[in-house]
């Protein structure tokens, strides 16, 4: 332990454990298991407000497990310790004209946090994705290998460093979206891919939600490799600067690749879609700004509320006042405007053509929404403090299947409804058995996803 860390630790309250390496993580979890203590698994706490609100004895912060341990651009592979900031990885691979093709969203703006604070571990634990999800996949599709510590305090690995691998169960994928409840990732290997040379966006103006779904389906189902298809109703367009001037709804279709290909495809798409509405374009810069803002759900962003995330080992410049705030309210992160005044945010995934039905249901009660993933991903902003699960989840079921997750809400609203899509009885029992195999003492983020698990 460095002197600086020791000094920092003395300055703040006693609920944060900051292991330096995988062996420390294993030892900490073993200790917690033997002492009957609980740990909230976190990276830099940028997504602490996601999931059910829980109280644990300690936060297990993996922010000190940093560093890219392997990057071979010609092999399209990168490994880094779980606490490495995503922003650092994105900058590194951009230097070799590569990217994380799944375009992981940054939850910072939506949760009232600064941008760029998420870690690689959090990215996989929350199975992040972006507008390229339908064609390029989510974090789950790009995770090649993991090292992790289960609730047994044992370090284990799964997967490998090659793209094609079916040796043993696919735990890198199976643990994607587990929100730290089965294991704490310590190192992750991902696939990286070349960045497209350039990008343009074709816009169709003034479509209603159903017409937009149909237009997006036609575009994505064409030969012309559309790598993003989103629809912003008029009441959301004004909140996204890149298209705010449109004054009516905007349906956006992204074309990426080499310039000759984009020219060709743009011409073909124009011919395909001209009859559906007035067309407009975003050039490369405007396109990048648009899709990034859309990815990060900026139309529904919360005001910046808290310097919490700067509270890391050796970086306590934010002062002890914020530290005391954590001690008083370990989670959720407080939201702006006081509890109850903040609009609730829901994230819904359904079949692409069914998204508009969800939109109609929420608009009928004063909500707003916009669509990504060709209509299948619906981001919803709901006013008021009553639980909206009884409205939204039946609407999702009525489409034939999908899931609805409460992403942001004041604590009482979060506590009043299930945050994650509830599991049926058989699947729920199965997941509980899996949890008790990985974490028999219930050490790791108990209750974060489901009550009693």
């Amino acid at each position, binding site marked *: 332990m460095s002197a600086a860390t020791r000094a920092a630790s003395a300055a703040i309250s006693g609920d944060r454990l900051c292991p330096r390496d995988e062996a420390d993580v294993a030892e900490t979890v073993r200790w917690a298991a*033997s002492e009957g203590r609980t740990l909230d698994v976190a990276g830099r706490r940028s997504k602490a407000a996601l999931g059910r609100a829980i109280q644990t004895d300690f936060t297990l912060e993996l922010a000190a497990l940093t560093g890219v341990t392997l990057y071979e651009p*010609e092999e399209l*592979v990168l490994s880094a310790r779980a606490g490495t900031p995503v922003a650092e990885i994105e900058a590194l691979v951009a230097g070799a004209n590569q990217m994380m093709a799944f375009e992981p969203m940054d939850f910072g703006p939506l949760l009232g946090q600064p941008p760029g604070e998420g870690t690689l571990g959090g990215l996989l634990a929350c199975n992040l994705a972006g507008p390229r999800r339908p064609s390029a996949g989510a974090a789950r599709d790009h995770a090649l290998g993991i090292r992790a510590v289960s609730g047994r305090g044992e370090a284990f690995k799964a997967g490998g460093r090659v793209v*094609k691998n079916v040796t043993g169960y696919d735990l890198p994928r199976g643990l994607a979206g*587990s929100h730290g409840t089965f294991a704490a990732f310590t190192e992750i290997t991902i696939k990286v891919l070349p960045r497209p040379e350039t990008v343009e966006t074709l816009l169709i103006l003034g479509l209603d939600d159903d017409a937009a779904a149909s237009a997006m389906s036609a575009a994505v189902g064409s030969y012309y490799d559309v790598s993003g298809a989103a629809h912003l109703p008029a009441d959301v367009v004004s909140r996204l600067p890149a298209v705010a001037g449109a004054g009516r709804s905007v349906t956006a279709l992204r074309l990426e690749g080499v310039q000759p290909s984009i020219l060709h495809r743009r011409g073909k798409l124009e011919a395909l879609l001209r009859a559906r509405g007035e067309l407009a374009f975003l050039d490369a810069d405007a396109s990048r700004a648009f899709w990034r803002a859309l990815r990060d759900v900026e139309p529904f962003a919360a005001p910046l509320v808290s310097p919490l995330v700067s509270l890391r080992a050796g970086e306590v410049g934010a002062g002890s006042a914020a530290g005391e705030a954590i001690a008083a309210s370990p989670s959720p992160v407080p939201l702006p405007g006081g509890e109850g005044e903040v609009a609730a945010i829901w994230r819904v995934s359904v079949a692409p053509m069914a998204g508009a039905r969800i939109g109609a249901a929420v608009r009928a009660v004063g909500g707003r929404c916009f669509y990504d993933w060709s209509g299948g991903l619906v981001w919803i902003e709901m006013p008021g403090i009553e639980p909206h699960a009884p409205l939204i989840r039946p609407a999702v079921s009525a489409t034939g299947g999908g899931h609805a997750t409460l992403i942001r809400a004041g604590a009482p609203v979060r506590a009043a409804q299930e945050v994650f899509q509830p599991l049926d009885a058989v699947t729920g029992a199965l997941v509980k058995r899996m949890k008790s*195999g990985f974490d028999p003492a219930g050490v790791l983020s108990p209750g974060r996803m489901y009550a009693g698990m």
Partner: protein
Amino acid sequence: MSGLVMPAPKADVLARRSEIVAALREIVPGEGVIDTETEMRPFESDGVTAYRQLPLVVVLPSTTQQVSQVLAYANANAIPVVPRGAGTSLSGGALPLADGILLGMGKFNRILDIDFENRTVIAQPGVTNLGITTAVADHGFYYAPDPSSQIACTIGGNVGENSGGVHCLKYGLTTNNVLGVEMVLITGEIIRLGGKHLDSGGLDLLGLIVGSEGLLGVVTEVTVRILKKPETARAVLLGFPSSEAAGACVAAIIAAGIIPGGMEMMDRMMVHAAEAFLGAGYPLDVEALLIVELDGPEAEVNHLIERVAEIGNGLGCMTLRASTSEAERVAFWAGRKAAFPAVGRISPDYLCMDGTIPRKALPLVLSRMEAMSVKYGLRCGNVFHAGDGNLHPLICYDANKPGELDKAEAFGADILLLCVEVGGVLTGEHGVGVEKRDLMPSMFNEVDLAHQQRLKCAFDPEALLNPGKVFPVLHRCAELGRMHVSAGQLPFPDIPRF
């Protein structure tokens, strides 16, 4: 069968055979239960014909309800169950057990739903891989993963094995293309995971099921995504004087930001075998031949073909031919696709291995394999999914020569251990099955394997689903469930704490 050891058959199950057959006939009436030796013979092995075993009984259900009842009965009576699709496994994944029910899913052969607007197909597990593409081809769509057995292998088997094909680098494996399943647990309980939507919003159980080799449940329905067939596809043949030069070309193409639809490499022996087999027009003076296929919008393909040609020329390729017609593109592939039968013509038997390596290790791996070939006195040719590092060495042997199969298996094991040594894995797309089971400890330690088996325990605590596959040692779940902690030991003096 060579040295393969399977779990000892349970004497009480064998003794109760006629009672078990009768009970299964109650569940699946008529011809759905097969118990004569002659009629069971076709089920005694899968694609790995070196391993054979007659099952206790073959059951061919045709409804999810029947599958549920069969599994519930097997669970209640502690009878092992081996699921089987078309029996094309190249790892012995569908090898029967003497005391086990072989659950053939061939009657689940219907496509239930085609949805072009949402770009999905719902199929029963016994539908062939190619059958899905055929069903949507008239609208210009296809199902992307294309294992070479696609004419016969089933989508249910693809889910079990997480099957790949030659287009994985660009379009992913089965797991990246499956959206949902209905499956039956060993208890007979039926669950649904996923659907026409993306992701689960939480735990990715679907990701765990794909590639689980029939050890976690029996899939009775699969939802896949379909893609629009690329507008154009063109291929380039590039011949090189060394595998190093060909490997450098592959790396340079990727470094240039190009992800080809397919990128295959064949070594000299395979080029000659394929040429002798069907006269594909391959150059015979090269040490390594690359087939690079670009697909997508026409303008893009033409642009990228030129760039690939420039890269190849810059790296000293001896032959360079770009296809100018669909017929020519198909001809370029014909030799590669006939690689296995071509070897079958020059050798009475062969073993097909399936390791994956970091691409940069290819020259080292090829030269070490040449040395092994000399050591074992067996020829070995190589086809290589160069884009994703998946290597398929074909080891030639003669099963009629005493000891040659054992030698070939030892050679194959040495190759796979070499793959792991250079940072790769035991299997890229064929699965562990029984073939690579005993090599698992070369990649995973006891703790790694115990964590995998604990998942198995959550699904199938009595280890009745496909026992003897994937895991070299079957630990009892009770033993795996114990937690070894010494209470009161503390408190990690070295952990920085706030």
